[in-house]
């Protein structure tokens, strides 16, 4: 299991979701991906995308206009 970061700041939805999707495709089941965004839509869209595709959101944080969504890649 490894920990990865994705910078999706200054991108508007759905770009953060697309970047997340493409990055997750390269990761292994159980890996953790931390996505940094500025579009508040990501707070809604990334968890929805995870639910649809069998990944788990393990945390969301919001500080100084930055949103961090952390997910665990599903099998």
């Amino acid at each position, binding site marked *: 299991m490894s920990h990865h970061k994705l910078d999706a700041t*200054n991108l*508007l*939805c*759905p*770009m953060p*979701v*697309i970047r997340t*999707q493409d990055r997750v495709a390269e990761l292994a089941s159980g890996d953790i991906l931390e996505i940094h965004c*500025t*579009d*508040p*839509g990501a*707070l*809604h*869209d990334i968890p*929805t*995308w995870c*639910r*649809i*595709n069998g990944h788990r959101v393990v945390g969301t944080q919001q500080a100084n*206009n930055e949103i961090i969504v952390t997910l665990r890649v599903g099998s």
Partner: protein
Amino acid sequence: MSITPKAVVLISGGLDSMLAAKVVLDQGVHVEGINFFTGFCVEGHTHAIRNQDHKKPKRNNALWVAEQLGIKLHIVDVIEQYKDVVINPKHGYGANLNPCLDCKSFMVRKAKEWIEAHGFDFIVTGEVIGQRPMSQRRDTMPVIAQESGADDRLLRPLCAKLLPETLPEREGWVNRDALYDFNGRSRKPQIALAEQFGIEDYAQPAGGCCFLTDEKYSDKLRDLWVSQGEKRYEIDDIMLLKVGRHLRPRPHFKLIIGRDDGENNYLKGYRHRFTYMYGTSHNGPLVLVEGQTNDSDLELAARITARFGQGRDADNVRIEVVEQTGDPRNFKVVPLTRNEMQEAWYI
């Protein structure tokens, strides 16, 4: 043992593609969704930018639809390849800069590439004959099937009964009798079918699925092309066309003026690319300046900036002007009066 056929559905986030997916799902087909991000999609963006929209749910409708249907959704970034569709549409534009027929063919072609790469059997769309004046007519349906190369692997469940039989029907992957014969501009059949499926909540985009059907947006895109002397765009250009007021006080420069804090914040993200200005003595918008400007242009821009700030009635307003090179400068200007603001400047 029978193998479950697999279909990919073009999910726009609207009702029709949702219904089309549901019809095929209910026939036991394995369905996944695909959604193309062209850069012009109405999804999320400006809704997320503007303050006034913050109360509305910021959901992405395509994702939402997929979740309701319980299917996977693949969102594909086609920004680069889509440029040719917008810039050189073989079949021309609709009422605004919407190249709907070329766009549909392009998307079905992309879906066809996708099914070939992923071992799927056919493509489903929510098209209805006669629903849209340009792309959804009886005579354009075969054009899309043919130009996309999808041919009879393209199934439109909502109007399939009015069209020739397709491969999924011939192969018995779907039952033609359980497909539909919707026709015309009326939304009633779709609304009735939604009710029958127990679907109560769905997005109803007014004009179409993208900004290119919007008159004001198309005006701004045309203006961009005229000012550049050719038809081309980058993703940042078309994103910025969705934000702020756009004014062209002189042919060689344009101002993008934030309308609220949300837009000002968004425009701040572009400060590294443009000359920008904002009021220091009074609150007001962040303004980006696009084009080559001399000092008298900048002064005019500063006076316009002052006009849109809280100092519009003050004797003078201080505006900080930051160019890409050199130190920031502070202009003391008289805000333009209402009469001095020219209607023709607004794009």
